[in-house]
């Protein structure tokens, strides 16, 4: 009886630990084509590699420490300067925070007092935005592998690897880093054509080390002219 109790306790603890990391739905990948693109074609087709400036209206769900924080916002994404400015609002249109992020630093322009008191808030959001939008793109010399309808380009980073996976239509679908500097995965889904660019309307970032999940749903994308 005692053993059964111990096993049940272990199972419930395991379920809790697993459950505490927010679940991420499985990606729907195209399977009616073959992954045959050349590395340079994959790189050229990626919207994050283009010299564009975008205004993305999106809704965001930040999940951390058992809390879910839904926000609406506008993100100005300058892919030339590798600079992002995110203004997040609550449902009443009140600006919750305004954050400027570059590759190396971040500046919290303003925030409601409740967020100003959260240690590491600006740094955490900034790091997530860098992981989603500002990863150094794969280089032509990086290792290319094919797995059925998927292609993966990977390279070595500090004590680990970073891998960029593309579906057979040439869209970037995941970036996965396992390294001493971070253990995280970004999934890009629901690509839609905006002008000449295919942009994912759903992006989910899981930071396994910090038990943080950031989901973005882009519902309007405008290039800045």
């Amino acid at each position, binding site marked *: 009886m005692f053993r059964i109790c111990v096993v049940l306790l272990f199972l419930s603890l395991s379920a809790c630990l697993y459950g505490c990391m927010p679940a991420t739905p499985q990606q729907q990948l195209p399977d009616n084509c073959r992954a045959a693109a050349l590395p340079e074609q994959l790189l050229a087709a990626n919207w994050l590699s283009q010299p564009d400036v975008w205004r993305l*209206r999106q*809704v965001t769900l930040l999940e951390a420490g058992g809390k879910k924080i*839904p926000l609406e916002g506008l993100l100005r994404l300058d892919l030339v300067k590798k600079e992002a*400015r995110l203004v997040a609002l*609550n*449902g009443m*249109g009140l*600006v919750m925070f305004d954050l400027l992020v570059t590759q190396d630093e971040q500046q919290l322009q303003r925030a409601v007092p409740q967020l100003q008191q959260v240690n590491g808030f600006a740094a955490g959001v900034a790091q997530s935005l860098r992981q989603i939008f500002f990863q150094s793109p794969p280089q032509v010399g990086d290792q290319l592998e094919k797995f059925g309808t998927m292609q993966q380009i990977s390279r070595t980073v500090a004590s680990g690897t970073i891998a960029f996976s593309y579906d057979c239509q040439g869209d970037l679908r995941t970036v996965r880093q396992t390294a001493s500097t971070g253990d995280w995965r970004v999934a890009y889904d629901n690509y839609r054509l905006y002008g000449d660019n295919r942009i994912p309307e759903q992006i989910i970032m899981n930071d396994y080390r910090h038990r943080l999940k950031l989901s973005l749903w882009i519902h309007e994308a405008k290039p800045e002219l």
Partner: protein
Amino acid sequence: MLHKLKIGLLLLVFVSCTAPGYAAEVELESLLAELKQAAAQTVTLSSPFEQEKYLDIFAEKLLSQGQFTYRKPDQLRWELLTPVASGFVLRGERGERWNRLSQEQEKFSITSDPIMGMIAQQLLAWARVDLDWLQERYRIELQGVEPVTLHLYPLAKGEAEYIDYLQIEFAPDRSHVVVVQMVEPGGDSTTIRFTDVVINSELITTAFQVPE
């Protein structure tokens, strides 16, 4: 001598009573009394609304749509339908909010959640035209009469850091508010337009409950 002094005093009183500032003050007081009387007749109020957020740094307008419902004295429902279904209901000092994105419902009280408290009190003040509450917190200026348009400047320093002023526009019959604009010090603003307002209609029994 006494006669001349009396005439002088009378003239002074006359001039001060006919000065533009005095006239405006009298007009404002009279209008506020009229608005208060009209609002006292409102038992329920229901209206779709459009919310426009202007972000100065991007020179961009973000639009949302929703539905507002009020029942005297202190029940509210504020529901955004786009871009994300979300909102809250308030019954007295306690309420519940929901968000389709997080798929969560959460109880709150306006005393323990200062942001929700501020939002709820503002909405209640406008729905019931609670001028006593407003005059305690804002300096009120009359901007126009047809339609009645007021500017409200926060008296509390803390609130003035977030709100430069509020502009409130009433319906032509002065029975309810049709536009609320909140102008922030940095140049951002939020404008809420209430359209097709229905007053004193019967509300559905679930009007102040969280949607299924």
